[in-house]
């Protein structure tokens, strides 16, 4: 028999009447399993023979056929044989084969019928040489090919496996006769074969589906269960979901614990339950949902309310859940961060307390140092100024040294206080309209004593016609004095310290001031660090005991508070030049909110000049200060501007108001000023009176007007008015 060529009798193929299609659920599982390839585990589970054996046995018994289940490779997973096919026994006995098609007597391994059925998706019917038939039904779901069921006609007389010899013996024939006997078996007709194929196909797929469904259910249940356990198990976070209107749809154990509502009472309720009354009034819950819908997520920290009405500080994270672009609801995570907040608050309080303490300490130290310093200062100056009689030149000189040291101590104490202010962000500047010419003269006269002692000449080159600056006069003085004193300190005897001012080419809108000395210069590496706190260049330290090394640091801070910058240019042995910039006063900037396009177009920019005279001949400066305060009350804050003193000379008895109004509005403001000044109440008998109030209308051009042009025009009007007054006075 081994010599016989493998032969297959093709009995035909056909597609079963009902091609199995994928249901939604199937696709879900297939999708879950990786879309195109079903995982090996799932295949094994689907084709678990133990599950299949009952239905296959039933089929086999009914139709008196042997049934086998194979995987997609044709490997037999299990058989139910109410009879063993003789030919298989013949072949197995002859060849000792154990795998391959259990029914086919051909030698194809694995059975081509399985491959064929899986390829075409149809039922394959075959007959062997003996005329016995078997049908092969593919097991398919969509694109997935899982395996096949083979049902074969068998000798039904022997339901149990028998050896060939036993079969032959039972038949009382030789093996040859057995073969012939087999041929005499009435082959089933194709119609019957086909009907049984249909049945098997339907049965197989129904069961495959059922099994598929069962596995799906089991898996979902397992996943859900695991997820539920996970969600339930989370204790430190409240996790809950809401539908798109904010009604709670799930509520975990953490939520019950943290938010104090059990699931049963909160389900279906609006989540605004956990908000404070104020938040609900301010529609915060709706706003948060809205934000989550818009950007996908809303995070917030704030007070939330538990079921027992106690508040806690919560970190809330709302995520919008979307399915195919449709909002399905929200997932919410709430965490109680009250403790963290407490810790953060405590830390912040500790930091503030430390800062406050530091400030208190330094201001206390500064206060305590100032008191003895004052006594020393007074006694020294009393002696120096000859209050107790004339001094010998030596006594005078030594007292002079003492006084210098007192002054140095005094400035160090001031520096110490300024440093505290830098640290506590309290170093402020109060900028005003300021003329540098006078201020520099003033500073130079202050520094003159120091310079004279060292025989150093102080010079200043102040360009004529410099614009006013917008700076704090006391602070500018402080910066200049510090730089000049440094220059004096480092310049050799009979050297020069020069103060210069010029408009800054690089920094538009700034004036540049410089202080240069003819000293020893600063090396490049030191140029970087001299503006740092407590930096004192070693090699120059012996030049003088030069304070705390805070001067340049404070100067830098002060300049930057003005919006300017400070830097140094230096060459060793050729001296140093310190530069710093300060903003130029800009009428346009100060009056920006008056010089708006609508105001300009409507001609609503009015310049009012208020000339004040006093009842007595001389107008005192403090009266002018008070008058300014009165005028400040007369203008509309945020709409009108009371200009700073616009003249170099002083005292100036003219005040200017730039008002965002027309002639009619001027009448209103004017009458208010007259009324207020009449009520002027001063400790002194002096009283300002309005000598004139002029309406200087700014250009009411229509169309495009540059704000800078208007500002320039207003400035012209101001100067013209001041000049006119001077002339009439003269």
């Amino acid at each position: 028999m081994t010599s016989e060529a493998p032969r297959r009798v093709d009995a035909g193929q056909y597609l079963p009447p009902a091609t199995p299609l994928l249901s939604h659920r199937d696709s879900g599982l297939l999708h879950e399993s990786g879309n195109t390839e079903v995982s090996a585990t799932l295949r094994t589970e689907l084709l678990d023979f133990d599950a299949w054996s009952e239905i296959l046995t039933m089929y086999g018994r009914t139709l008196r056929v042997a049934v086998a289940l194979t995987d997609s490779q044709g490997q037999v997973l299990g058989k139910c044989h109410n009879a063993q096919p003789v030919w298989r026994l013949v072949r197995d006995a002859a060849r000792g084969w154990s795998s391959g098609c259990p029914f086919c007597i051909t030698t194809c391994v694995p059975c081509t019928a399985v491959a064929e059925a899986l390829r075409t998706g149809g039922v394959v019917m075959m007959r062997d040489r003996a005329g016995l038939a078997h049908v092969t039904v593919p097991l398919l779901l969509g694109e997935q090919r899982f395996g096949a069921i083979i049902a074969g006609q068998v000798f039904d007389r022997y339901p149990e496996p028998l050896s060939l010899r036993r079969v032959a013996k039972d038949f009382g024939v030789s093996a040859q006769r057995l073969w012939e006997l087999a041929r005499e078996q009435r082959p089933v007709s194709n119609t019957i074969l086909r009907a049984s194929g249909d049945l098997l196909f339907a049965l197989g797929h129904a069961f495959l589906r059922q099994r598929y469904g069962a596995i799906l259910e089991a898996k979902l249940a397992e996943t859900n269960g695991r997820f539920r356990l996970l969600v339930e198990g989370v204790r430190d976070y409240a996790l809950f979901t809401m539908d798109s209107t904010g009604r709670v749809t799930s509520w975990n154990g953490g939520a019950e614990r943290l938010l104090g509502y059990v699931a049963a009472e909160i389900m279906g309720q609006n989540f605004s339950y956990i908000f404070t009354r104020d938040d609900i009034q301010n529609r915060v819950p709706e706003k948060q949902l809205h934000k989550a819908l818009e950007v996908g997520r809303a995070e917030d920290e704030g007070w939330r309310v538990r079921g027992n009405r106690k508040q806690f500080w919560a970190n809330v994270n709302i995520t919008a859940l979307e399915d195919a672009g449709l909002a399905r609801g929200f997932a919410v995570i709430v965490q109680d961060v009250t403790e963290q907040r407490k810790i953060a608050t405590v830390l912040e309080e500790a930091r503030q307390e430390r800062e406050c303490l530091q400030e208190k300490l330094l201001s206390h130290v500064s206060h305590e140092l100032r008191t003895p310093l004052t006594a020393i200062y007074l006694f020294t100056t009393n002696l120096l100024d000859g209050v107790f009689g004339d001094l010998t030149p030596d006594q005078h000189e030594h007292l002079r040294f003492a006084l210098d040291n007192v002054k140095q101590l005094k400035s160090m104490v001031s520096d110490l206080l300024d440093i505290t202010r830098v640290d506590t962000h309290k170093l402020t500047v109060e900028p005003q309209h300021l003329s540098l010419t006078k201020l520099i003269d003033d500073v130079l006269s202050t520094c003159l004593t120091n310079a004279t002692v060292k025989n150093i000449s102080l010079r200043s080159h102040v360009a004529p016609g410099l614009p006013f600056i917008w700076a704090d006069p006391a602070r500018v003085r402080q910066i200049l004095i510090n730089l000049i004193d440094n220059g004096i300190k480092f310049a050799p005897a009979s050297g020069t310290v020069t103060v210069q001012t010029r408009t800054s080419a690089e920094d538009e809108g700034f004036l540049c001031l410089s202080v240069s000395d003819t000293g020893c210069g600063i090396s490049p590496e030191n140029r970087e660090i001299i503006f740092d706190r407590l930096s004192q260049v070693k090699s120059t330290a012996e030049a003088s005991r030069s304070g705390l090394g805070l001067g340049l640091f404070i100067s830098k801070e002060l300049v930057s508070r003005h919006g300017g910058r400070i830097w140094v240019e230096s060459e060793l042995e050729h001296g140093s030049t310190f530069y710093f910039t300060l903003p130029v006063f800009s009428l346009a900037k100060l009056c920006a909110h008056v010089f708006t396009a609508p105001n300009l177009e409507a001609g609503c920019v009015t310049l009012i000049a208020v000339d004040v005279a006093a009842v007595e001949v001389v107008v005192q400066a403090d009266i002018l200060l008070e008058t300014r305060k009165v005028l400040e009350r007369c203008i509309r804050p945020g709409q009108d501007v009371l200009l700073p003193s616009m003249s170099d000379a002083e005292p100036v008895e003219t005040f200017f108001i730039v008002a965002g109004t027309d002639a009619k509005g001027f009448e209103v403001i004017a009458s208010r000023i007259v009324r207020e000044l009449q009520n002027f109440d001063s400790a002194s008998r002096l009283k300002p009176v309005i000598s004139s109030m002029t309406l200087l209308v700014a250009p009411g051009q229509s169309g495009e007007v540059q704000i800078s042009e208007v500002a320039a025009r207003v400035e012209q009007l101001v100067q013209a008015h001041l000049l006119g007054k001077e002339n009439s006075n003269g």
Partner: protein
Amino acid sequence: MDEKKILIIDDDQHLLLGLTARLKAKGYRVICAADGVSAIAVARKEVPHLVILDLGLPAGGGFCVLERMRDLADLVAIPVIVLSARDPADNEKRALDAGAVAFFQKPPDNHEFLSAIRHALGETVALSTFLKT
């Protein structure tokens, strides 16, 4: 013309000594008080032309003294110059609002301080000397 009377209220004996010497040399009559309570009593008795007031005082701080003086008809018109070691950033405005005519931080510059005294006493003095702006 009578010499002007100046009352210095300060608890630092050395300051009193030094400042008294200086002011006497300038031709003023000087009286002293070292605490808030006696200061008011001395002021009511002597009625000085000017008060130089420290802020940190025993028995009622400087601000108390200022307020009391503003409440008493015989003292309300006396100009007060505050001379304190305290930070002007916190105290200058408060002192001026409470009725002081000037605030000086210790140690004051002698020249400026004397100018302010002369001005407060209504003596002629160049305006620019005490104009801060």
